[in-house]
C-alpha cells in the first residue's frame, strides 16, 4: 500500500525467514565475526580472479540462506540482486549457478535495500512465495573497477573508504518465523555537486537525509519509533554530516540511535580510513548483526537506509559530479519470532 508519495506499507508483513552472510579475511578480523555464517581466510577464494571470488561469495550466501530453511531452491520464485562490477556480471553469473528467475539491479551500495524493498513489495502483493534478496562486493574487484590496481602505492586521503569483501542474502517469505518487513521508502537521486570519488560519505549524506526525512514524514512517526536508524556506508564523515543535517532539519535522531554499517563492520584501528563501504557493508551488517539482535529480542524496530553513489569511473573522469541515492526499509521483530 502506498502512503505519501514514495513509501510502501507492507500490510501482509513479509518475513525475513533466513539469512546467509559470508565474509573475507579482513572482515573476520573486524568487529562482528560471530555474525557471519561463512568466513574465508583467502581473498581469492581459490578462484583465478577477484570477480569470480565475488560471484562465489554471492552464491554461498544464497545457498546458506536456503539451506537454513531446509527447503529446495526450486521453491524460490525470484533472485533479486546486483553489485558494483561492470554490468553486474558477478551477480549475473551467480544467478546462472543458482538457476532461479532473476532481476538484476544497480544502485551501487544501495542495492541491498532496493532489492529488499522490491522483494517485500512483490511478496506483499502475492507475486511470489519466496524471494532471495541480497548483494555482494569484493574489495579488490571494486578497487580495480573504481580506483587503482590493488598493488598500486598511491596514498588515499583520510576521507576514502574501504569496500567490504562479502555477501549478505535474505530469504524473504510470505509467512514463517522471523523479523518482518513493515515499510520501505524509495529514494530519489540527490546530487550536491561533489566530484571527489574519495569522499563518498560526504557525497551520499544528503541522499540519506532526504530519504530518512521523507520516510518519517510519510509514515508519520517520530525517530524514537526506531531502536536504530542504520545507514549503509556513510562512514565517519558522512555519518557526522548527515546527523548534523537531520538535527538541523529538526529531526531528533540521537547519536546513539544513529549507527552506520561501515563503522560497525570493522574494528577501530583496522586501516579502513573513514570506514567500510560497498554493497556488502549494509547487507552483511543488516542480515548478520541486526537480524540476530532482532531475533534475540534485544531490539524491536530498525530502519535500514542503504546509501549508494551512482557514478562510474567514466563519469568521474569526464568531470561529472556524483549522483547519490538512499533506499530505506523498516524491519520489526515479528509476532511469530522466537
Amino acid at each position, binding site marked *: 500500500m502506498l502512503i505519501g508519495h514514495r513509501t510502501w506499507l507492507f500490510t501482509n508483513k513479509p518475513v525475513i525467514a533466513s539469512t546467509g552472510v559470508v565474509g573475507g579475511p579482513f572482515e573476520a578480523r573486524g568487529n562482528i565475526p560471530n555474525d557471519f555464517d561463512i568466513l574465508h581466510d583467502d581473498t581469492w577464494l581459490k578462484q583465478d580472479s577477484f570477480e569470480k571470488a565475488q560471484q562465489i561469495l554471492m552464491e554461498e550466501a544464497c545457498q546458506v540462506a536456503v539451506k537454513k530453511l531446509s527447503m529446495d531452491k526450486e521453491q524460490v520464485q525470484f533472485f533479486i540482486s546486483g553489485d558494483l562490477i561492470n554490468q553486474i556480471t558477478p551477480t549475473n553469473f551467480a544467478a546462472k549457478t543458482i538457476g532461479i528467475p532473476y532481476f538484476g539491479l544497480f544502485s551501487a551500495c544501495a542495492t541491498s535495500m532496493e532489492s529488499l524493498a522490491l522483494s517485500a513489495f512483490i511478496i506483499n502483493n502475492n507475486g511470489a512465495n519466496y524471494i532471495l534478496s541480497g548483494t555482494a562486493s569484493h574489495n579488490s574487484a571494486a578497487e580495480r573497477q573504481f580506483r587503482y590496481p590493488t*598493488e*598500486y602505492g598511491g596514498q588515499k586521503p*583520510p576521507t576514502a573508504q574501504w569496500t567490504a569483501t562479502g555477501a549478505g542474502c535474505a530469504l524473504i517469505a510470505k509467512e514463517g518465523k522471523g523479523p518482518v518487513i513493515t515499510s520501505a521508502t524509495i529514494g530519489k537521486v540527490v546530487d550536491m555537486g561533489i566530484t571527489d570519488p574519495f569522499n563518498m560519505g560526504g557525497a551520499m549524506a544528503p541522499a540519506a537525509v532526504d530519504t530518512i526525512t521523507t520516510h518519517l514524514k510519510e509514515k508519520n512517526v517520530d525517530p524514537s519509533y526506531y531502536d536504530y536508524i542504520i545507514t549503509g556506508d556513510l562512514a565517519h564523515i558522512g555519518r557526522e554530516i548527515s546527523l548534523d543535517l537531520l538535527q538541523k532539519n529538526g529531526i531528533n535522531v540521537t547519536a546513539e540511535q544513529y549507527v552506520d554499517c561501515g563503522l560497525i563492520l570493522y574494528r577501530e584501528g583496522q586501516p579502513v580510513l573513514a570506514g567500510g563501504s560497498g554493497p556488502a557493508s549494509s547487507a552483511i551488517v543488516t542480515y548478520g548483526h541486526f537480524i540476530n539482535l532482532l531475533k534475540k529480542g534485544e531490539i524491536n524496530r530498525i530502519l535500514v537506509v542503504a546509501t549508494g553513489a551512482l557514478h562510474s569511473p567514466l563519469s568521474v573522469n569526464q568531470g561529472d559530479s556524483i549522483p547519490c541515492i538512499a533506499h530505506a526499509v523498516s524491519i520489526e521483530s515479528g509476532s511469530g519470532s522466537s
Partner: protein
Amino acid sequence: MADKKKKNLPPEAQQYQAFQQKRETKRPLFKNCLKAFFVGGFICFIGQLITTFYIYFFNFTEQTAGNPTTATLIFLTMLATGFGIYDRIGQFAGAGTTVPVTGFGNAVIASAIEHRTEGFIMGVGSSMLKLAGPVIVYGVFSAFIVALIKTFLTKWSGF
C-alpha cells in the same frame, strides 16, 4: 576551473559543500610532507648505496652507474609490489614512494599484475602502462620541446 564549476551549482549545493567541507577530515599536509621527505630520502639513500656499490666493485663511473642503479631499484620495487608491501609503504609515505623511480616502477608492475586475468595481450600488454602512460607521453613530449628550444638557442645565439 573548480571555481567556475562551483559558480554553476545551485545555491543549495554550494551551501552544502561549504557545510560538508568543514566536517571533512583534512589530509595532514605537514605530517605527509615530513613522511614523504624521510621515506623518499631513504629510497634515494639506498640508490646512492647501489651506485657506490657499482662504482666500487664494477667498472662504472659516476656518469654510467645511473642506469644499472635505476634497474636495480625497479627490480627491488617489483619484488616489493609482488609481495604486496609497496602499497602499504605507499599509503604511509605518499609522495615519498611515488616521486622516485620506484613509484614509476610500481605503477607499471601493479597494473601488469592487476590485468593479468584479462590475458597477456589485451590484459597485461594493453593495460600495463595505464597509470604510467601519462608520465611517458608528457615526459617524451616535454623532452622534445626542450630539445627544440635548445636547438634554436644554440643555432641563433651561436653558443
